[in-house]
């Protein structure tokens, strides 16, 4: 029977490297060291470093260093193996130890997820490299207020689609950036180059950024865009992409229109693209901060992620909220029991 056949054997049919192999990138991730390590990358016919291809940035290395690992920057091989094992066990949605509320969130098993199963090759304990404690800097008081207000809205029944986040609304992808940070699936980005432009195409929500390299200024300040306005330039073998002009609600950790993102793409060897980003937003964080995400070359293919096409989830959330209101109104009309 066909169904039985797929149960055991299907796993090997399509294989994708989902995590950087150990040792592909080195521990330090500052821009100077990245450029030094890069050696002579392959070049395009017109002489630019060739960053083209599909790159996979799935990893279970967390963005922030877990508090339990405070002071520990890099894991040994043994610790890394244990970290992977523990993380995967804790993420395993087959666990039944959380009660029904947790169960609802653990809606389907690990087969459906694509977090990757390895830490980054550097074995760093966080993707954040600056501040040195590996933690995202504290929010400013006003950003904390915004975050609390957002949480309150998200926890209640949605009044309309605007009460849900941009990813749920299929407007922007959760990991597509800028800046890109690994998520639960669709952690793939394809880079295309021409002499005058670079195109950064994320699998999540099919988001494409066309980045001019000709030195033109950013668009005027009154033009605000969901993913900002990106301009690129070459610094040695590193592609530097500067993004400003975000709208009021960038898709990154509660940042504001003041968000400024600087991304650096360096091909450190044939199979590794070192992706580094620095973010600043004085209305959100108490200081700028940076992270490094080694990406691994993959054959792909990328798949379409036409999020709006079947976003029944949004309909169901709104229908659920309206049903709840109706039930509450009827209960009120019936009076106390």
């Amino acid at each position: 029977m066909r169904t039985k056949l797929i149960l055991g054997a299907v796993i090997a049919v399509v294989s994708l490297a989902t995590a950087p192999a150990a040792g592909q990138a080195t521990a330090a991730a500052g821009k100077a060291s990245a450029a030094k390590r890069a050696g002579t990358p392959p070049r395009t016919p017109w002489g630019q470093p060739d960053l083209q291809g599909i790159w996979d940035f799935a990893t279970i290395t967390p963005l922030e260093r877990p508090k339990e690992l405070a002071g520990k920057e890099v894991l040994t091989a043994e610790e890394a193996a244990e970290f992977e094992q523990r993380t995967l066990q804790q993420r395993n949605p087959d666990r039944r130890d959380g009660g029904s509320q947790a169960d609802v969130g653990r809606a389907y098993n690990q087969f459906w997820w694509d977090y990757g199963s390895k830490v980054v090759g550097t074995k760093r304990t966080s993707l954040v490299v600056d501040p040195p404690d590996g933690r995202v800097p504290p929010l400013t008081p006003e950003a904390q207020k915004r975050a609390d207000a957002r949480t309150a809205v998200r926890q209640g029944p949605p009044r309309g689609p605007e009460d849900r986040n941009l990813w749920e609304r299929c407007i922007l992808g959760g990991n597509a950036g800028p800046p890109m940070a690994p998520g639960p699936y669709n952690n793939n980005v394809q880079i295309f180059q021409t002499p005058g432009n670079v195109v950064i195409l994320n699998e999540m929500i099919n988001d494409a950024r066309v980045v001019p390299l000709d030195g033109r200024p950013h668009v005027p300040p009154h033009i605000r865009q969901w993913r900002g306005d990106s301009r690129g330039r070459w610094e040695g073998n590193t592609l530097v992409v500067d993004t400003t002009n975000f709208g009021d609600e960038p898709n990154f950790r509660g940042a504001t229109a003041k968000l400024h993102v600087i991304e650096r793409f360096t091909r450190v060897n044939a199979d590794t693209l070192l992706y580094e980003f620095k973010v600043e937003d004085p209305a959100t964080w108490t200081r700028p901060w940076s992270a490094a995400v080694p990406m691994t070359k993959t054959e792909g293919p990328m798949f379409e992620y036409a999020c709006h096409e079947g976003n029944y989830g949004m309909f169901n959330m709104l229908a659920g909220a309206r049903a709840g209101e109706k039930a509450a109104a009827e209960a009120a009309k019936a009076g106390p029991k």
Partner: protein
Amino acid sequence: MVAAAGLALAAVPAWAHHAFAAEFDANKPIRLQGAVTKMEWINPHAWIHIDVKKPDGKVEQWMIEGGTPNTLFRRGFTKNSLLPGTVIVVDGYQAKDGTQKANGRDLTLPDGRKLFLGSSGTGAPRDGRDPTEPKR
């Protein structure tokens, strides 16, 4: 030792395209057994349609929400991997709006085997810890 206590992480919440808690009701657990009528292979989430025969003989049509087809594709699971007629058992939670939709907390075959089979090691498919897992 870092290894023992140091790596005890806080539980990592599942992070889907959307919050299931806003869509499905934790107070409405359900168990359904039915035959697949179709698999809707759409983004952001696949939906499995099943016909559930009630004790009185009536047939109810239910929709079960899954994850992104992209991940299934990468694991080699295609639209043809779950053919109409296959009987599955769904343990999950019903939609808050009371319609016949549910999230598939556990999807199994009637004999108890998991429908979407991961590795036997950590719960993550292809994590290299399952000796029976085909090599890449």
